[in-house]
């Protein structure tokens, strides 16, 4: 009996030989425990060594292997072939990012935005090392812990139609990261992360919510953004209605 197989239709883009992306079909063995990443690695090793794509840990913690699988942003190391078999699987580079080559996208914009939100503890006054660590209770850690789980996989940016329409939008992961520091009890730098409360920060977001749906680590960036809106609005009204006594 012949080995069962499954077809992957994969985006190819080789700027040195074509102006626009094309799709190439590959037939790979179908195995019950294989994920799309296994299929891509099989293609690279056995069929077509020219295929370019990013991957690393193959276990959902590095955030490298994000791609569109049948139009849905997914970690290819977490997308099982058996969930698509026997239909063919369409594998494309993450949308809303420019394509460098094949399945590899340009993530410079994302990297820039992560830095813009100043993702580090900012203190009004640093404690000297001799005075020890900044203490934090388990409850205080619980407040922001889920927002620390981001693996920078960019699936949320691929899912967000606002980012697709407006490339200047800070985006789910960057805002969630800024929020993570704003609500960290050790941080005193909220007023230095003003960019979040400006245009192209939280105010571009229309709470489509798809970012949180696709997030493989359950960070819930949508919640971070909406809570930031509430927080910013409260502060705004307070500063208008009670301009004296600002915290």
């Amino acid at each position: 009996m012949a080995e069962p197989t499954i077809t992957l239709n994969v985006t190819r883009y080789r700027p040195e030989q074509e102006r626009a992306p094309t799709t190439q079909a590959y037939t790979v063995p179908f195995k019950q425990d294989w994920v799309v990443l296994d299929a891509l690695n099989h293609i690279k090793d056995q069929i077509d060594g020219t295929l370019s794509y990013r991957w690393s840990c193959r276990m959902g913690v590095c955030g490298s292997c994000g791609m569109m699988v049948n139009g849905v942003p997914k970690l290819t190391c977490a997308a099982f072939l058996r969930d698509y078999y026997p239909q063919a699987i369409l594998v494309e580079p993450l949308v809303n990012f420019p394509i460098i080559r094949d399945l590899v996208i340009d993530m410079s914009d994302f990297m820039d935005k992560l830095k813009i939100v100043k993702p580090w503890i900012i203190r009004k006054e640093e404690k000297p090392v001799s005075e020890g660590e900044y203490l934090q209770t388990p409850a205080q850690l619980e407040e922001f812990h889920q927002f620390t789980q981001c693996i920078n996989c960019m699936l949320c940016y691929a899912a967000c139609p606002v980012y697709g329409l407006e490339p200047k939008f800070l985006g789910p992961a960057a805002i969630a990261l800024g929020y993570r520091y704003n609500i960290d009890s050790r941080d005193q730098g909220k007023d230095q992360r003003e960019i979040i409360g400006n245009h192209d920060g939280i105010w571009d977001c229309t709470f489509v919510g798809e970012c949180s749906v696709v997030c493989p680590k359950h960070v819930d960036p949508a919640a971070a953004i909406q809570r930031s809106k509430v927080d910013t609005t409260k502060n705004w009204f307070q500063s208008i209605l009670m301009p004296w006594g600002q915290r």
Partner: protein
Amino acid sequence: MSVTRPEPSKLYHRKMPATWWLKKQSYFLFMLRELSSVFIAIFLIVYLCQIYQLTQGPQAYIAFARKLSSTGWILFHLVALLFALYHSVTWFQSSAVVLQLRIGERLIPRPIVMALHVGAWAMISLAVLILFLALKG
């Protein structure tokens, strides 16, 4: 530390069509949610028009209500009601995401927050109905 950026002229940019919201069910449902605000606004304008009739004499208000009994208007209000209900449900779901309600130190799970919203909504609707029946002329 310098960063190597890709050569911009070789990058391929995929355009997002204006019909992006038709391409995915979740996007389409999102658009329906946004459009619910239109039907709610139109209904409230119609309501305001009816209230305005009270400046045109006692029969004008009743005549307007009779106009609203036409098939066209009944259909409009049916559609408006469906959209209003969709707004309510999605608004309560959104509230459950944003709000962090606690009992002591423990966060109340989202489905329960949702249920509390629906319960409050039922009670408020009932209160409006009872008040209206009790106080109307």
